[in-house]
């Protein structure tokens, strides 16, 4: 049922072992992690400035780079290298060359390109007043078409662009439990196709609906979904 379609979309994917839990762990384990973190804030203004764009760079990494042994900050560095190459600041061969690394070491050689998204798969843009500060929030005049208590499902699509719809909830019925403030749609902004702001709905899923009868008892999984992902569940669905 939940075949893993994209490298990062791992909610519910089986086969992972115990959580590497350390209640006492420090903020950074090594100095290089600190540097990667700090560099990011100056690299992003030259590269991925739009909401969702940096996340999508992470998602486009090859599995060996996404799950690399350098962990989270290794993944960040790889995404940074990819973006610097794509934006023309540091060619993917340049760092390898300087390090004397084997040609083709950079994650930029394995990354998936940004997919062309057909805007017809996206909801229409809506004009909203431009906020005074930088924010993903937007004020929408029309209320959400859904109400708390509605039974909904998200069909999703098989496009390979950025999305915040996790694979594990696709086509599973859930119940709207809350309506959050509206946000720009990352599926659109990450691809430079406009804000297309959407209401955001918190949808509660019963574990048994997601994982079947062997699921743990008494578990509810709440997922925040953009309104355009959702449809009302009908009796025949």
């Amino acid at each position, binding site marked *: 049922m939940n075949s893993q379609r994209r490298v990062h979309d791992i909610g519910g994917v089986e086969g*992972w072992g115990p959580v*590497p839990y350390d209640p006492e762990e420090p903020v950074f384990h090594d100095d290089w992690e600190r540097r990667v973190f700090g560099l990011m804030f*100056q690299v992003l203004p030259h590269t991925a400035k739009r909401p969702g764009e940096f996340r999508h760079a992470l998602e486009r990494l090859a599995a060996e780079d996404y799950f690399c042994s350098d962990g*989270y900050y290794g993944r960040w560095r790889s995404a940074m290298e990819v973006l*610097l190459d794509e934006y023309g600041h540091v060619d993917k061969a340049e*760092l390898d060359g300087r390090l*004397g690394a084997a040609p083709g070491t950079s994650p930029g050689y394995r990354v998936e390109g940004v997919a062309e998204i057909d805007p017809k798969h996206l909801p229409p843009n809506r004009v909203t007043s431009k906020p005074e500060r930088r924010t993903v929030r937007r004020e929408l005049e029309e209320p959400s078409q859904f109400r708390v208590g509605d039974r909904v499902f998200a069909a999703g699509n098989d496009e390979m662009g950025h999305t915040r719809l996790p694979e594990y909830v696709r086509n599973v019925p859930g119940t709207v439990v*809350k309506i959050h403030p509206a946000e720009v749609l990352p599926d659109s902004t990450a691809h430079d196709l406009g804000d297309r702001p959407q209401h955001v709905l918190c949808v509660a899923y019963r574990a048994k609906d997601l994982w079947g009868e062997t699921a743990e008892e*008494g578990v509810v999984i709440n997922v925040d979904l953009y309104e355009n992902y959702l449809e009302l569940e009908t009796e025949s669905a």
Partner: protein
Amino acid sequence: MSEHDDHHHGADPNLPEVRTEALEDLLVEKGLVDRTRVDALIERFEHDLGPMVGARLVAKSWLEPQFRESLLENADRVLEEENIKGAEIEHVEVKANEPGIHNVVVCTLCSCYPWALLGLPPSWYKSPEYRSRVVREPRKVLQEMGLSLDAETEIRVWDSSSETRFLVLPERPLGTEELNLEELAQLVTRDSMIGVAKVQAS
């Protein structure tokens, strides 16, 4: 070419520290990065941010029922009133644990986390093991992490898939009736506000 070429020559290019340093040098040479600003930013995130901001909110909720109600009702307004600002808290929801209900937070698609309330997320929170499993078998994962919940307790998992960020309001432990705000805040751990631990009285 620069002196940095010699500096990196001979070091194993696959080591993360070697590759990161070379990348930083390149970015500085190209004028894309200012090293002192990098240093300042790291300093701020490593030392000025941390779970104490969230811990104070929790402790105050334990002492003031009205504050607790406001926090659960509209955390954004409370954060504004308390002048709490910063990264990754544009919209915050607080979920209260109570007898029979336990909340736990994850981000299955990446590693979203309320930075300005809890500091930077720990590695285990960002690990594929936690992200994949806590939505499918939360009871088992929590048990493995040292938190056994009885079978009657409902587990509510919150997947941070939009820009909403979640904070768990843990239960106040027994035996803390005499403590003041600061003393209570000292007891509140980061992990209890993610929902993988309970707060202990001492």
